[in-house]
C-alpha cells in the first residue's frame, strides 16, 4: 500500500521540502491548512518526482486561502470525505511537521 503524506506548511518550509524529497512511487501528497499555499502554479518541483505521485489539496483550505484558481496543474481538490477515503486507502500516513 502506498503512503499518504500530509503537508500543512507553506512552500518555503523545510518540512514540506523534506516531504517532497521522500516520496515513493504511487504515494499521495495531501496539502491542507497553510500547505495549500505550496501547491499553487509552479510551486511543486517535479524534476525528481517519483512516478504516479498524486497531489491533492483540501477544498476547505483552498477556498479559505483563496487559491482555488491558482493551483498547480495536476493538483486535484478533495473534500473531507475524500480525505477520509485517502486515509483509509493508504499506509503509512506521514504527517510532516
Amino acid at each position, binding site marked *: 500500500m*502506498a503512503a499518504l503524506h500530509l503537508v500543512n506548511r507553506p512552500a518555503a518550509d523545510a518540512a514540506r521540502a*523534506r516531504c517532497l*524529497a521522500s516520496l515513493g512511487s504511487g*504515494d499521495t501528497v495531501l496539502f491542507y491548512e497553510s500547505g495549500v499555499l505550496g501547491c499553487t502554479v509552479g510551486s511543486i518541483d517535479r524534476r525528481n518526482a517519483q512516478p504516479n505521485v498524486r497531489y491533492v489539496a483540501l477544498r476547505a483550505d483552498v477556498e479559505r486561502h483563496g487559491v482555488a484558481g491558482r493551483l498547480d496543474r495536476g493538483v486535484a481538490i478533495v473534500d473531507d470525505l475524500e480525505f477520509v477515503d485517502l486515509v483509509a486507502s493508504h499506509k*503509512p*500516513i506521514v*504527517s510532516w*511537521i
Partner: protein
Amino acid sequence: MSTRYLIIVNREPGVGALAREAIDLLLVAGAFDLDPAVLFMGRGVLHLTRSRAHGDGEPRPLDALGTYGITRLYADASSLRHAHLDHAPLDPAATVVEGDAIGRLIAQSDVVLSA
C-alpha cells in the same frame, strides 16, 4: 507480522522539546521490543555528531540505542550534505539513504512518526 515503526527525527538536539521527545519515543519503542527504525533528516542529522550540543565524552540519549536493541539507523544524504556532515564519521553510525531509498523506507513501515 508485527507492526513496523519508523521515527523521523527532523529537529536538531538541544533546540525545543520535539527533538528530545522523538529520541525518548525511540527509546521507549526499543524498550518494548518494537524494533523501531529511525531516520534523521533536516537538522536532525546533527544528532549524529557530538560537536554541536554535546561535549566530547558527555553521554547522550542516543548512546543508549544499542542497549535498547535499536540498530536500524538511517540518515538522509542531502541533509548530511547541507550540514557539511557528508564526509564526517557518524556517531552513532547510520546508513546513509537518499531519494528513492527514503520512499522505500517509508513504504516498508506501518507507522511513521515525524517530529
